[in-house]
């Protein structure tokens, strides 16, 4: 089973992709662990490691990085929002 991972705004541009389907390793159970897994790819991906500039939503709800993630979820990473 996979998770759908989305990226938005400056993060999407930096990574060069807006989405991917990722097979969830058995030891990844939180949004923070998934973030760390992606950040460990290095280069542009290390931008994900910034706690100040990255927010996360699981199934379209903004959550903390301790939020649980399971197969079938939609997990989005993005910079702090700037609408209005």
């Amino acid at each position, binding site marked *: 089973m996979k998770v759908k991972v*989305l990226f*938005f*705004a*400056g993060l999407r541009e930096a990574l060069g992709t807006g989405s991917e389907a990722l097979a969830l390793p058995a030891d990844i159970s939180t949004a923070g662990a998934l973030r760390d897994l992606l950040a460990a790819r290095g280069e542009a991906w290390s931008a994900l490691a910034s706690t100040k500039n990255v927010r996360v*939503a699981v199934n*379209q*709800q*903004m959550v903390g990085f301790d939020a649980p993630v399971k197969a079938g979820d939609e997990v*989005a990473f*993005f*910079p*702090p*929002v*700037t*609408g*209005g």
Partner: protein
Amino acid sequence: MSVSVQEADFDAGAEIAALAAGRDDVGAVASFVGLVRSDKQVEKVGAGGTAAVQAMTLEHYPGMTEKALEAIVAEARGRWELQGVRVIHRVGRLVPGDRSVFVAVASAHRGEAFAACEFIMDYLKTRAPFWKKEETPDGGRWVGARESDDHAAGRWQTEKE
């Protein structure tokens, strides 16, 4: 439909009129219109640029955006007695002078309308998944989040919770 995310412009007067149309219990409608400004250098955070903004593109998270806005409206309705709420946020490319966001709140008295309108805008700024990218003569730059917006949203927690 109280929440819309759209590329098209809106007619603030028509939206305000619609909130009170056909009813006699609305005593107040408070509204807010956000516009695109050409020069954001004064409040620029971390971008280092001072060039005038020629246009901006608003990106959002389709699906989540509508849910987040509806949750903000629901929270406002839980805090104040409101008779109607309308939120419109534009996306896509906008130029200075364009309207970008609209919030209007109808209630029996002005106090609820003023407070709920400001609350919705403050929460929209920090909780709804929109991102602005500005076009300047020096190139594109993503707008940074402002601490003052977090403070503005935080006020409602200390006052009400």
